[in-house]
């Protein structure tokens, strides 16, 4: 029975209602609700410890929520038939080191009911797509970290899933391979697959997601299309200034020019959020130079989701 064919196309692929998960006194996921439409790529963006992994584990049916309900394609994720339609890629590459890459993926093919030549063909196809076919017979224990991540991703695709849950799928991959994985995710979207992508890379969330939920401290603090989120924050541009010396002392000098006083200092650099960069940039530069600061570089860029997160929380997504 193909569950996806039995359900209305208007029904959300994933529905999360008031889901919380507590581990003792610690709340990992705090009253989270959202819906993901079929064929949508939904990004979960947040720093480490935001609750993304726990939420994905709940969606995968691995961890039980303390409260709230989760529906995948209209059914419980605990239903083994539902799990057959879900591909899960955990954050850490979980492979059997004693088995070859091919044997690893064949094992999961068996769990999805694939066998014989059909399974072999499908496994080789996926390994080829992720550049692992050449190393298919090498034991996974001898794979590099990046190769394990790719194998991890390939395993998530073996059951031809309707819904894909990806937890930091590209962390540890080199840029070339990361691009390949992005292309694969885009291809899956074009095939009508639903993808939930947990990441702390804002470029990844921006490049791939139709909608994004920004998480912090177990809660969803903002949700929507990336462009809309940026607009809602009132940000038009970001001026990045690289100084010769620590930038902390220059904070007071640039604050009056920033939109709602939004300036962030990070070592020798200043990040100033402005409404009208063309007018503000020359003024900022002359003020700094007149006060004895030496400027190494200046860059004006449109705001990113990182900036949205910074604006909402006062912290960066990836702490240096």
């Amino acid at each position, binding site marked *: 029975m193909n569950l996806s064919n039995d359900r209305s196309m208007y029904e959300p692929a994933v529905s999360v209602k008031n889901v919380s998960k507590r*581990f003792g006194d610690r709340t990992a996921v705090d009253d989270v609700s959202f819906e993901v439409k079929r064929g949508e790529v939904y990004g979960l963006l947040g720093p480490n410890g935001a609750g993304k992994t726990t939420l994905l*584990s709940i969606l*995968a*049916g*691995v*961890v*039980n929520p303390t409260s709230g309900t989760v529906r995948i394609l209209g059914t419980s994720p605990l239903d*083994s*038939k539902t*799990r*057959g339609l*879900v591909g*899960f890629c*955990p954050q*850490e590459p*979980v*492979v*059997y080191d*004693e*088995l070859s890459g091919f*044997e690893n993926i*064949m*094992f*999961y*093919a*068996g*769990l*999805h*009911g*694939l*066998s014989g030549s059909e399974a072999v063909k499908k496994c080789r196809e996926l390994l080829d797509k992720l550049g692992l076919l050449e190393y298919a017979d090498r*034991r996974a224990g001898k794979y590099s970290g990046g190769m394990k991540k790719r194998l991890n991703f390939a*395993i998530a695709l073996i*059951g031809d899933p309707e819904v894909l*849950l990806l937890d930091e799928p590209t962390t540890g991959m080199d840029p070339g391979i990361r691009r390949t994985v992005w292309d694969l995710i885009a291809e899956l979207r074009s095939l009508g697959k639903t993808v939930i992508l947990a990441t702390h890379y804002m470029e990844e969330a921006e490049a791939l997601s139709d909608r994004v939920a920004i998480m912090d401290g177990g809660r969803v603090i903002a949700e929507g299309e990336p462009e809309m989120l940026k607009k809602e924050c009132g940000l038009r541009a970001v001026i990045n200034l690289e100084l010769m010396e620590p930038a902390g002392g220059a904070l007071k000098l640039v604050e009056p020019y920033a939109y709602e006083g939004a300036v962030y200092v990070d070592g020798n650099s200043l990040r100033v959020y402005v409404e009208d960069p063309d007018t503000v940039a020359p003024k900022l530069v002359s003020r700094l130079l007149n006060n004895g600061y030496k400027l190494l570089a200046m860059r004006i860029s449109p705001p990113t989701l990182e900036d949205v997160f910074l604006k909402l929380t006062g912290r960066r997504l990836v702490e240096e």
Partner: protein
Amino acid sequence: MRWSAIKAFVVKELKTTLRSREQLFWIVFWPMILVLMTGYIFIPPSVDQPKTLKIGVVNYDNRSTAPFNGSYFVQILDEVEYKGVKLFDVVEYENESTMVDDLKGGRLDGGFLIPRGFGANLMMGQATLRIYVGASDLQSAQINEAILRGFIEGMSREIAYRKVNETIYYMRRYGSQYMPENLTIPGFNETLVEFLEVWMTGLVEPINATFVDVKPETLMTRSTVIGWYTLGAAGMSILYTGLNIGSLMAVGEKERGTLKRLLASPATSTDMLIGKTLAGVLTLGLTTGLSVIVGIFGCGAKILWNPLKPEHWLVPLLLVLGSLLMIGFGMLLSLVTKTARGASGLSTVLGMMLSFTAGIWFPKSWMPEWMRFLGDVFPATWAIDAMRSIMVFEAGLAEVLLDTFKVLAATTVIYLLGILAYRTVLRRYAEA
């Protein structure tokens, strides 16, 4: 429950197990080492051969001019053989204290102090002899004493017979001169000389006992005893490897990080349980098979097996039941072990302890009452006893059927409890 998922688990488990050096050691090499150790240490190839003792001799009777003196006795010690093997390797000492020093140092198995006049006394009356029993360990002390006692008793008896024969010879030769011919003892038909011959023989050896070996065929020779121990080694592997497999059922995957992905897959926890159990039983079958092969070809073990006897087919059944039983116990252990290392360590320790209480290595009759009780209530002991009843004491089907049903019932109960424990571990994982 899907066969493709179960098959995937079986193949994966067998491959990961046989490719892991640590696992391979415990499953393949450890049973082989056990069988070889059993074959060559418990029952060394020389077990059927008499042991040669290294003995010291202090001879103070070497200057006597009697027809038999201490030097002749030393010569006998040096030349005496049993089943074609020299019984003693003689080292002569000048004085007693030097010999005793070597005995205390464990460098001698025994010693003889031959006093002055030993030979003359032996011929004409009763000789005294001091014998020292040496030892390098407790067991060798018993063996050495038995050999020394056996030798002296045999020699004493031999000398007594010779003295009796000599006496009878002289009585026959000269008796007629001093005793009336045909003198009889009232109530006896023999002549006085005939009567005295029988009487004196009785003095030398009042009971002429004949010992007849009627041990089970399996315990008759070294090769059959090794066969008996080979089954014990296989049983021990089943004890601790079974415990290990059961205790790692969920914990092993959890520690690898793969449990998360398995629980997210369409395979059910039942698929995993059945797949891993089947792989475990196959692994234990492999362990048993290897133990038997090493026992037969490496140590010369003889294992009684007759496929025409239906009770012999209960042995593989008992092995499978024993495997399931220990896997079930292992799953129960996983309730208290949180890491693979902990599970593995606990299973090995428990497996070792149980192998002693189950009477795998030593007869249960050696154990104190409370320990014997522990062995008697442990179902694996029933399985091992039933197997030995069939293969050692040639018990018939009717004699072991009840024990087999008891093992079946215990395995069912323990395995079901194990399943509950396994599900509890998975539930804890999902709740944590």
